[in-house]
């Protein structure tokens, strides 16, 4: 039975440095949950708190309602897959997979049987006697997963396990990981700085920055309704238009964004709702949400194309309007459309313009 993992106001400090600042959330049993953030945001430290390699400085970690304080990593119902996999090079594939059983005193025959079962599951049958060094990157990946699953943990923790693979294999392994998770029904906690991984695989994502959890939500909400400026700028491409709130009415904001005329924007989450007239703010508009030369009445501005970049199925433009410069992504080559140097009209729907208080943005 998959167990919940609760982080109850967990903080971790190293001297003056706060690695994790008041993390408070519950990961539901059976969920594929990702911690997403740039390197140094504290996601690995949180993972180490859950696996038992790090004791929280404050707060507690509970797994299935049991407080984990003082319980060592070898006694927790978690299994960790390391970034470099940490397979044992001096053991064979089967010995690696059976290692958790060996240290629990399971006899050799039963060990081998379980290893063969798992090899079957990861589609590497009859490879048990190979050396680890004889495997490809993707195969090693699968062996690491099999080893972690050997003693049927309640929670599988994955620390950027795909980052060492090349793009094609990474995309393949994403699907495979998701499939394995659904097959075994365990709680997967996944650490990554790669938003593509987090968004494609996860049921829910926690975006972290500087030790703080910025937002916990499903991938679609994270993308469409970011709760903070950091989330808006870190996840996916985004234009951040700095402005001042001019007016508040019927759930929308009128913001001077320097585009020549005021823009109508939607407040982003609770933080956006708290914006008052006169407050400085950021309005986030995604490049793919900006239209060129569309006849709309709202948020429509004269602009000029100053850069054009062709990238196969999409085209990247930079357009200047007022004192702002925005990135625009268009599908297709747009032969009939506007090109570099043309004067155009840019527009975006108020629903796709998210207003949030001025705060830290992700550095590009």
């Amino acid at each position, binding site marked *: 039975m998959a167990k919940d993992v609760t982080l109850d106001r967990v903080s971790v400090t190293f001297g003056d440095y706060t690695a994790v600042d008041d993390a408070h959330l519950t990961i539901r049993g059976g969920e594929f949950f990702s911690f997403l953030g740039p390197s140094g945001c504290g996601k690995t430290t949180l993972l180490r708190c859950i696996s038992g*390699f790090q004791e929280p400085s404050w707060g507690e970690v509970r797994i299935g309602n049991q407080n984990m304080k003082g319980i060592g990593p070898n006694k927790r119902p978690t299994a960790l897959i390391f970034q470099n996999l*940490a397979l044992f090079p001096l053991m064979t594939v089967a010995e690696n997979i059976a290692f958790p059983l060996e*240290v629990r005193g399971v006899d050799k025959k039963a060990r081998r049987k379980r290893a063969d079962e798992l090899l079957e599951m990861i589609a590497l049958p009859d490879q048990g006697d190979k050396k680890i060094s004889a495997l490809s990157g993707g195969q090693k990946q699968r062996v690491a997963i099999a080893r972690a699953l*050997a003693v049927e943990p309640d929670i599988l923790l994955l620390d950027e396990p795909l980052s060492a693979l090349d793009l094609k294999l990474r995309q393949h392994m994403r699907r495979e990981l998701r499939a394995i998770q659904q097959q075994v029904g365990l709680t997967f906690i996944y650490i990554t700085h790669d938003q593509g991984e987090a968004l494609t695989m996860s049921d829910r994502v926690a975006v972290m920055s500087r030790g703080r959890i910025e937002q916990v939500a499903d991938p679609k909400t994270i993308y469409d309704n970011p709760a903070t400026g950091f989330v808006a700028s870190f996840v996916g491409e985004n234009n951040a238009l700095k402005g001042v709130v001019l007016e508040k009415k019927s759930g929308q904001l009128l913001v001077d964004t320097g585009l020549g005329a005021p823009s109508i924007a939607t407040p982003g989450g609770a933080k956006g709702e708290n914006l008052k007239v006169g407050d400085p703010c950021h309005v986030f508009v995604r490049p793919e949400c900006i239209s060129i030369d569309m006849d709309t009445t709202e948020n429509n501005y004269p602009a000029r194309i100053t850069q054009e970049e062709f990238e196969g199925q999409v085209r990247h433009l930079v357009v200047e309007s007022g004192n702002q410069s925005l990135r625009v992504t268009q599908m297709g080559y747009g032969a009939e459309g506007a090109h570099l140097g043309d004067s155009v009209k840019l527009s975006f729907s108020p629903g796709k313009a998210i207003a949030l208080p001025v705060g830290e943005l992700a550095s590009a």
Partner: protein
Amino acid sequence: MTGITRFFNEFTERNGMPVAIYLLIAVSIWMLLLVALPQLTMLDFSFRQNLPPPQIGGPNDVYTLEQYRYFAMGNEISGSSFNALDISVLFKTLIAAALVTILDLIICYPVAYLLAQSSDAGAKRLLILALIIPYWVNEILRAFAFRILFGATGVINGFGMQLGLWDQPIDFIGQNIALYAGLAYAYILLMIFPLYNAIESLDKNQIEAARDMGASWVQVHRHVVIPYAKPGLASGATMVFMLTAGALAAPQILGGPSSLWFTQIIYQWFNNGGNWPRGSAYAVILLIVCISLVLMIMRLFKVSIGEIGR
């Protein structure tokens, strides 16, 4: 052989001919003049008779197995067919050397592990310095210091009796405890550094992975660290064993009145006995016995010579 040729060609290409020639000459001098030649001379000596100087090179100077026969059978005149004294001293020396090696392993493994896995570079440097600096004190001085430490009126007996742990001074010297302690201490670095080198390159994640998968600390060491450190373990253990078996100063100074180290017998033949051929034969015997023993044990633990070089 092809490996050596390839190495030499590559080396020449990278560093130029003069450096390569220098290396070749230096290594040759070292190997031939300092290693091979003296050993061969000793070997030659060991098959000769102990003749007075005028007869050397004369008609009586022929090769003989007399010196080796003496080691095995003893004095012809005594009528004994078995040189019990010398053989038993050799065995005792080997067993003592093995004990000292094991003692060093037990002492050094935890130190090397902590040193290798510590992430505090400053503390690491300090600890390594603390290990090295005591070795600036020369061997003789160190041996005498141990004698004072373990003597009947020494510091240890003084403390022990003061604290009431025992009321008669313990004869550490007579019991050879001082000797084992002195020898173990003398070669500690030769055990720590190969172990340290081997363990240092072990990925910390391997240890954490083993922990995470439920291994106790003992199991982590048994299944992950020790197999990985085996080459270092082997090279440390062989060095300590060889040097302990071949030590002379420490047994001379710290050995009890009844204890005799095999090297002391060799020394006596060369020095007091004035019988160089016999001394040479004994030295050759010690060398061959030690090498065979080490090779046997390495085979037992499945370590190849190549691994030791890593």
